[in-house]
């Protein structure tokens, strides 16, 4: 057996050595300034787009984009549906360690926050910065939407291109609940009065993490420390109020906190089944889109907490070892086009808020964006304000770790 293993290992190593020896240098970075040539090079390429696949509406939108890209630029966009995008990040990292500097599995990736930070830190992103050189960059609202260039306190420097906006929004059914809890203390009273009717997705799910971060930015004794990387001397005093608060909620949570929904979609299903009275989502238009889809009754209303909720932008990025960089660039640019952004913002399709400055668009493009104020299940920009900034990505990791320690094994 041992000799067999040795032979097997030797063979594997030989194959690896061979594979590494025939690898050419990293694939070339296209010159974004020469856009015409980028489009030419993109024609006929297949772009593997790694994106979270847990929401049918988003998947349908990506299918629409793929059809358009095929018709306009001859690009084959393949949506690789990922449970947790961190898996794709680790895939690119594994490729880098294995010396695979080209023909990587991932051509375009939907990320933000700690995943962006991890890719930036490990040099997994295509350099130099390219997003601010895209033809459609001129429409991006970097002024009023600062999160389009600063991702969880980290300047993006063009290494990722903004795709949409997100903000933590709570949902309730106005036919069942008269006055939803608008502060964290009111939420504790609400679950005490309605035991088993509230829960949050299990971290490390992004929405579960966002709920923890909402608690963190609201309850931290010194919010200043959140814009910097975690330092040990403030860690405990900053996290303690969060878990004290969760402890107040827990006895009255859905299933008494013995199990949690796995993600945002499962949380919304519990809400649709009337198992919980209050749901949360990271997309302000989620409620209106779900009503359109007959997933929720038309009496459902979104709301935000007094004092604001966490918001951010989400992005697409190109890994360093993609073999379809021109195709990925054209895709990122198309996703920024007024038309693609308008269709994405339509609550009947996805309802993801645009990163563009609609008021500054050419008039013909402005008409693409439907007026959100007419829809009772949508919140206007003024109702969503203020948007609270994300803490530094290192805090997310600490929150995840601490949550597992407290609740990971009941």
């Amino acid at each position, binding site marked *: 057996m041992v000799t*067999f*293993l040795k032979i*097997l*290992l030797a063979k*594997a*190593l030989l194959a*690896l050595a061979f*594979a590494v020896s025939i690898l050419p240098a990293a694939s070339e970075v296209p010159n974004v300034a020469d856009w015409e040539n980028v489009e030419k090079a993109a024609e006929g390429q297949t772009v*593997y787009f790694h994106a979270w696949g*847990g*929401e*049918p509406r988003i998947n*349908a939108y990506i*299918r629409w984009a793929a059809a358009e890209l095929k018709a306009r630029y001859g690009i084959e966009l*393949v949506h*690789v*549906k*990922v*449970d*947790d995008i*961190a*898996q*794709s*990040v*680790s*895939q690119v*990292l*594994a490729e880098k*360690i*294995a010396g*695979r500097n080209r023909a990587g*599995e991932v051509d375009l990736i939907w990320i933000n926050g700690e*995943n962006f930070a*991890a890719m930036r830190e490990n040099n997994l992103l295509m350099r130099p910065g390219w997003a601010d050189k895209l033809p459609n960059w001129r429409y991006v609202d970097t002024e009023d939407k600062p999160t389009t260039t600063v991702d969880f306190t980290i300047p993006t420097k063009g290494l990722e291109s903004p795709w949409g906006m997100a903000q933590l929004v709570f949902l309730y059914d106005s036919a069942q609940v008269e006055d939803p809890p608008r502060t964290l203390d009111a939420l504790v009273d609400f679950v005490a009065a309605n035991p088993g*009717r509230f829960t949050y997705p299990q971290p490390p799910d992004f929405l579960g993490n966002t709920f923890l971060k909402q608690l963190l930015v609201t309850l931290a004794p010194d919010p200043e420390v959140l814009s910097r990387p975690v330092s040990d001397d403030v860690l405990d005093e900053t996290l303690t109020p969060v878990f004290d608060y969760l402890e107040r909620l827990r006895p009255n949570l*859905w*299933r*008494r906190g*013995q*199990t949690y929904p*796995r*993600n945002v*979609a*499962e*949380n*919304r*299903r*519990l809400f*649709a*089944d*009337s*198992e919980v009275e209050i749901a949360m989502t990271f997309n302000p238009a989620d409620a209106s889109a779900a009503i359109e889809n*007959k*997933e929720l*009754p038309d009496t459902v209303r979104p709301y935000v907490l007094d004092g604001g909720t966490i918001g951010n932008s989400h992005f697409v990025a190109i890994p360093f070892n993609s073999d379809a960089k021109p195709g990925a660039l054209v895709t990122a640019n198309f996703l920024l086009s007024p038309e693609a952004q308008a269709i994405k913002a339509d609550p009947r399709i996805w309802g993801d808020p645009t990163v563009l400055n609609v008021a500054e668009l050419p008039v013909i493009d402005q008409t693409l964006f439907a007026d959100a104020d007419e829809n009772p299940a949508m919140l206007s920009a003024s109702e969503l304000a203020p948007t609270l900034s994300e803490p530094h990505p290192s805090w997310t990791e600490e929150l995840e770790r601490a949550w597992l*320690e407290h*609740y*990971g*094994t*009941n």
Partner: protein
Amino acid sequence: MVRFAPTLTIAVLIGPVIAGLAGIALPAFGYLPALGRTSFSLSPIADLLAMPGLWRSVRLSLWTGLASTAITCAVTFLFLAGWSQTRAFHWMRRLLSPLLSVPHAAAALGLAFLISPSGWLVRLVSPWATGLDRPPDLLIVHDPAGIAMITALVAKEVPFLLLMALAALPQTDATRLSHVAESFGYGRMAGFAYAVLPRLYSQLRLPIFAIIAFSTSTVDVALVLGPTLPAPLAVRVVDWMNDPDLGRRFIASAGALLQITVTGTALLAWLGLEKIVGLIGRHAISSGKRYRRDGVTRLAGASLALLCVVVIAAGLAGLAVWSVAGFWRFPDALPATFSLDTWKSNWAEAATLFRTTLAIGAIATLLAVFLTLGCLENESRRGRAPGKGTLSLVFVPLMMPQVSMLFGLQILFLTVGLPPTVTTVALAHLVFVLPYVFLALADSWRALDPRYAMVAAALGAGPERTFRRVRLPMMLPAVLTAAAVGFAVSVGQYLPTLVLGAGRVVTVTTEAVALSAGGNRRLVGLFAVLQMVLPLIGFTIALLVPAVLFRNRSAFRLARP
């Protein structure tokens, strides 16, 4: 060509197991050149043991695996003892057989909707009987004791064990043994238990071991129904393997090794249980009690077996209704409106996954049938059946926890640079499809009267021609049925597709499980329906082709497998 078939088959069955073991054994001790670690250490093991709730996960795996296997055996044997050779038995067999082809994931999804507090059962009796207009806050699905998970496993494994038992019964001389026992005044069930069961059990040992191995390491059923804080070990191993922190790969490999230990422990525990039951049994036999009045027990056996059918069928029906539901809110027992929107808007994508699933299943099944036919034809030409040892080789891949073997293979593929393709996935499926095809075909092939071949030889046909013109046409119904079984196994594979397809190869099964975590029951319903339709297509072909080909050969119709 035919001479090499057995060697090739054994290579296909055993090769991946050994390669998979090597693939996790090395990283478990810190060695993984692809991640730049070229020295051995014990730290992955230490890190694994430091994981919170590890032992609770291990206990869960052991408990759910052993409990579901024990209940499966109890239900199967109760039913066999009470009803074999009756008309009711044949009816039940017809009801149970289609369940065999329902993928585990689909069965689990159906059960989840049936029994959850907002599910169909509560909806049927609400609000008129329960007074509920909201679902009760009960921890039924994902319960910490894993009861929901055990229920799904039992409902899925009873049909499997029962059909295995039916194949084995003729070799136990059951009919005459039962007659003798009854003439001594024993009740029907006692007679079966004392005279037939000991012989039958030794034939069923390997299938039961396969059930233990599967249920101690299942991932898809655990994801849909199992406990979450902590989850059973196999689910956590998958999580560690997919962790963004690559350092976790080492812990995952150590966890995969631990999973093998856990499954091994469960098998040993089962052997101990056999001894105890054997002792009790012998004691009971020597007591001389006749147990003539076993009507209630017989009824219980029938009810439990029927319950398996009802649970799965009702769950799947619920999912099918969801796929055509409009607005459907608790506590309505049926949707307020019906619509085909789900099917219309997802048809294009569903069709793509349908084709992928079909292609993978077809490749794996064709290869499996080819290898099996080669092995069996080789036996026929040499005129001797293999010993029992060879048959146990068929079960080797079924004894190894899937999660351990597949991650080993994945790490090897990563090292060698094999890309995840439909072919890679199909080859991984072959390892799990081949045993079932072999089991489904071997008995009827060996039962074929050898004198047909002798007559053919006397008429001057060579071995090649005898195979093509005599043996294969006569065995065609059996071959097609075996192929349909293999295809159904392939359709139901979740983990091999997930691990070796690396997310690029998506089938209706991986999609259904991925969606189960989501909120859209309509889509889950759609993919579950597709999961059921695919095996049905296979079995329909297996029935129709011989009927059409041999429509003018009445004697062939009697040669049913």
